[in-house]
Structures are given as structure tokens and as C-alpha cells.
């Protein structure tokens, strides 16, 4: 089993903040906008380094999207940042009209995604954002797994020509991917080779998938772990390759069933190469207040539930 070591817990949003600063140093076209959440989005370092290129929009997300689109038309590369719910659901039409259909080079920095936002509760916890963003034609949807990968994904988003939705989270989580591994949009990453069952995961669930693979290995089950940090465009060839290898899959995400990574994977398999799939996700529910770890356990989004799901997938294959 490929070994990954947690080098110390860090929040993925800080990876975004560090990536934004680095991207901003490399390219003067990059500007950052927020709707009164500069600190939460870790934009402080960028704002301090480039005060003219940091645009505070106040608590007016709809206007922020339009302003970003206008800036992009004049040649800037705007990153707009807010909580995932407020930069997707609240402004879905603005993103659809001004960014996606208007084909403006706007990057949507979406923090505090999923239930790990924690104590604020369901009003602020979106489990539907991936579905909304996947539905937009041409939108790139990214959900990196840790600090290092989020930093690299931010750099990749800055380089990409066109709209990108970049999803990350609030809590400090294990940081285990290499520091300098370039993020390639549209490419899955097989983090652990296996032959019995495949676990396809994104975001916070990738670490859990690696833990689950270790537990499964101890029981004599060889699990392949695929980090599907690009949800759209989905790496279909990598998916088909792992499906052909194991014939049994688990898809894990901190998102509801409808429109998430699970349905994206199932859609490809149904069309090209049917295989058994088990889903580990938030089902069809709202979140609630609680600590991130308590919520993840309560909603079945941890290694223990992944192990059980892997065994179910294996049993169906036989």
C-alpha cells in the first residue's frame, strides 16, 4: 500500500489563500473579490500584497459575480470568494448568465463547502453545490483533498482559460499530498493501486478513503483509491480503467447524492461499462449544527463507513 503521511493538519482554505497569493505574484491580471469574508477565505495575504487588486464587495454576492464578469471582460482574472452556499445557490442565475453563458474567465472560490462547515448548521452547509455547478455547460468543477492539493488546484485554475468552480473547506484536516505536485485539470490520480475494489473520492473523503484502504488491506482486501479532484470534466478513461480492473466501486463525497460525483461516475459507467457502485454521501438530507468530525461520522462520511461500503460492493460482484 502506498504510504501517505499527514504532515500536520491544515485547512484547505488556507491552501487556497496561499495559492491565490502565489498566482497573484506570477500574474498581475489576477484580482480577488469577496463579499465580506476576506478572513474566512484566507485572502488577507493577497489583499496586503496587492491592495489595488483586492476588491471588497460587501455582503452583496450577486453584484460581486457581475463585477467579476465585467473585470474579466477587460482582461482581468478574477477570483470571487465566499461560503459555498452563497457563491453557488445564492447566485446561481448570476453565475449562469454572467460567467458560464457569458464565457467570462471568472474563478469561483468556494469555501466552507459541505457539512464540515460545522456549528453554523444547515443554512450555511451546502451539500448541493457540485450538482448546481456541474449542470452549467462548460463549467470546470474541482474539489481538491488537502492543503497542498488545494494550493496547486488554485494555480491550475488561474492558468485555465474559462470559468472554474473550486471547492474547498473550513476545518483543519490531514495534509498528505506532495507539496509540489502540479494539479492537472481533468486528470484523476490513482493514489493507491488495488485489484478488488475501487474507491473514487474527492475533497475531505480522499484521506478517509486511504484510511479505509489500509483497514481493508489488513483484512486481505486490495482497494484501489482514486482521487477524483476534477469532477468536471471527468476523467472517464481513468474511471473505466479502474472499473475494468476491480469491477466494484465506491464513490465518496461530502455532498448529497443528487448531481454529485457519485451520479457523474454512475452516468459514465452506465453509458460505457456497467459495474457495481456503492455510494457514500449525504444522501438526500440537510446538515445540522455540530463539530465537523461528529457530523462526518453521523452522516456516514468516514473511513469506517467506506470500509462497509467497499465490502457491500465486493459482495455484489460475486
Amino acid at each position, binding site marked *: 500500500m502506498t504510504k501517505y503521511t499527514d504532515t500536520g493538519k491544515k485547512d484547505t482554505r488556507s491552501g487556497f489563500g496561499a495559492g491565490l497569493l502565489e498566482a497573484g505574484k506570477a500574474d498581475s491580471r489576477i484580482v480577488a473579490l469577496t463579499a465580506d469574508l476576506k478572513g474566512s477565505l484566507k485572502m488577507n495575504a493577497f489583499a496586503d500584497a496587492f491592495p489595488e487588486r483586492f476588491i471588497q*464587495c460587501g455582503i452583496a454576492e450577486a*453584484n460581486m459575480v*457581475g463585477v*467579476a464578469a*465585467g473585470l474579466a471582460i*477587460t*482582461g482581468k482574472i478574477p477570483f470571487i470568494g465566499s461560503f459555498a452556499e452563497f457563491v453557488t445557490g445564492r447566485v446561481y442565475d448570476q453565475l449562469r448568465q454572467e460567467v458560464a453563458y457569458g*464565457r467570462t474567465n471568472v474563478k469561483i472560490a468556494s469555501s466552507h463547502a459541505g457539512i464540515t462547515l460545522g456549528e453554523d448548521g444547515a443554512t450555511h452547509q451546502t451539500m448541493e453545490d457540485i450538482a448546481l455547478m456541474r449542470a452549467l455547460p462548460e463549467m470546470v468543477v474541482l474539489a481538491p483533498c488537502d492543503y497542498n492539493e488545494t494550493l496547486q488546484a488554485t494555480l491550475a485554475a488561474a492558468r485555465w482559460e474559462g470559468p472554474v468552480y473550486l471547492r474547498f473547506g473550513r476545518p483543519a484536516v490531514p495534509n498528505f499530498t506532495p507539496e509540489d505536485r502540479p494539479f492537472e485539470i481533468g486528470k484523476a490520480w490513482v493514489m493507491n493501486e488495488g485489484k478488488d475494489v475501487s474507491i473514487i473520492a474527492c475533497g475531505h473523503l480522499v484521506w478517509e478513503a486511504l484510511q479505509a484502504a489500509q483497514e481493508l488491506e489488513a483484512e486481505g482486501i486490495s482497494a484501489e483509491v482514486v482521487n477524483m479532484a476534477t469532477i468536471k470534466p471527468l476523467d472517464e478513461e481513468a474511471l473505466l480503467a479502474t472499473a475494468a480492473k476491480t469491477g466494484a466501486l465506491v464513490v465518496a463525497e461530502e455532498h448529497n447524492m443528487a448531481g454529485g460525483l457519485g451520479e457523474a461516475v454512475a452516468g459514465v459507467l452506465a453509458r460505457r461499462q456497467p459495474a457495481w457502485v456503492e455510494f457514500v454521501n449525504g444522501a438526500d438530507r440537510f446538515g445540522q449544527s455540530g463539530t465537523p468530525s461528529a457530523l462526518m461520522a453521523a452522516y456516514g462520511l468516514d473511513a469506517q463507513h467506506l470500509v462497509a461500503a467497499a465490502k457491500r460492493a465486493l459482495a455484489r460482484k460475486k
Partner: protein
Amino acid sequence: MQSHEQLKIIATQVRRDILRMVCMAKSGHPGGSMSSADFLTALYFNEMKHDPATWTRDGKGQDMFILSAGHLTPVYYSILARYGYFPVKDLATFRQMGTLLQGHPSIRGGVKGIFQTSGSLGQGLSAAAGLALGKKLDGDGERVFCLCGDGESEEGQIWEAGMFAVHHHLDNLVAMTDWNGQQIDGPVSAVAGEGDLAAKWESWGWQVIVADGHDFASIEQAFSLARANQGSGKPVMILFQSDMGHGVDFMAGTHKWHGSVPKPEQLEDALRQLGETPLGDF
């Protein structure tokens, strides 16, 4: 510079284009197109610094325009074509399958003159503010114009953009409202009680100019005041008092022609009222 007489001729031809376009397409929005035809003609032919030959979507070196009230494509397309952005004969394709002249402005066809998609109401002023801010960041002295509807101004995002433009001192932004007092369901006053737009924009911190949207002297004066405002640190709102359906007696002053198309005999009557121009129909 076009004389007021020349502007009148162009605006008359634009009104003929509007009516013929919507009748050929059997759909579209003639009412607001006709109420805004005069000041938009003056804007494009006398006020904006722009050139179709060197036009690019990023607006470098030119003034820019956003049609926030995106349903006013008939007047918009007619003026763009009459100014030379694309062939006048293309107006015949308006709203037809496969056309570049979509029901609401789209950047997808690469139509020269269109900077941004619009039509979902309330959003264009934000985009225009972004353009204005982009020009400021680049040290570009050109300006950004934006047309909103008074009905459209019921959208909350208009007022978000209004706050933003003042806070960021966007004195290179000139917004205009086609203040015709009508919207789909009836008079604006009956639908939403929007109240005094001049007082509202003033209280928001904008430089407000009220003008007669059908009097070229008044329009010219408004644009002149707006030009002089650059450097003041405040954005400008020109409220053009206008009549929906202006120019044709049975269409004027009522909401009923917001999105309705004249019947063939009504078109004939309307074109007779407007009269022919030396510019000729498309």
C-alpha cells in the same frame, strides 16, 4: 457629429427596423425599444467613443456599453447595424433559428459590439461596474455606459451595484434608465410602487440627471453634464423620461406593447406614421 435633424432621421429608421424585426420574428419587445430609441441613437452616433473597425470584446481604447435591459435587442441591434457593426440585412435574422442576433444579447456568436450576455434582469449594472473598475485599474480613461429599465430597477441587485459604484468612486460609469413608467403587467406605479427614482439614486450617492428622452437638445445636454462629471468621484445616473412605444400613436404610453407584436395591418399603419427615411429599410 450628427445634427439633431440627422439623429431624428436615424432614430426614425431605427424605429422602422424595430417594428419590422419583431413582426418578421413574430416576437420581441418593441415598446421599450421605441422609448429608448432616441437617446440610444444619440449615445452611439454622437457621444460614445467607439469604432466598429477596431472593436474588441475587452473594450480597450473605446467606450463600452451594457444593455442591462436585455430584452431591448431590437433597438440595440438596429443601432449597432446602422452604425456599421454588422450588415443591416442581418437584422432580418433576428430571433430566427441559427441567428447570431439572439432574442437577448449573447456573446456566443461573436457579434461585434456586444460586450456581455444580458437579459436576466438586474444584472447588467454590476457587469458595467466591473468594466468601469477594470478600466480604472488599467488607467484607461474611457467610459462605460449601461441602460437599465425602470421596471428592471425593482431587482435588488441594481441597488447592490448602485452602492458598489459609489463606494469604488466609479465616475467613469454612466448609467441610464429608460424611465417610461411601464412594465409587462402594467404601469410601474401600479405593479411595484417604485416611487421617485431621482430621489432614490440621489440618496444612493449618484450624480443624477433627469432629461427628456425624446428631445435631442435635452439628451445632448444630459450627456454633456455626464461627460463633465468624470473626475468627480461619483457615478452618473441619467433618468430619461420617455414613452413606451413612442412614435406610433396606438403604441405610445401603454404597457401593452412591452412584448407584443403588431398585426400586419398595424405594422403598415405604424410605418406610415413613422414615414420613410433616406437610409432605407433592411
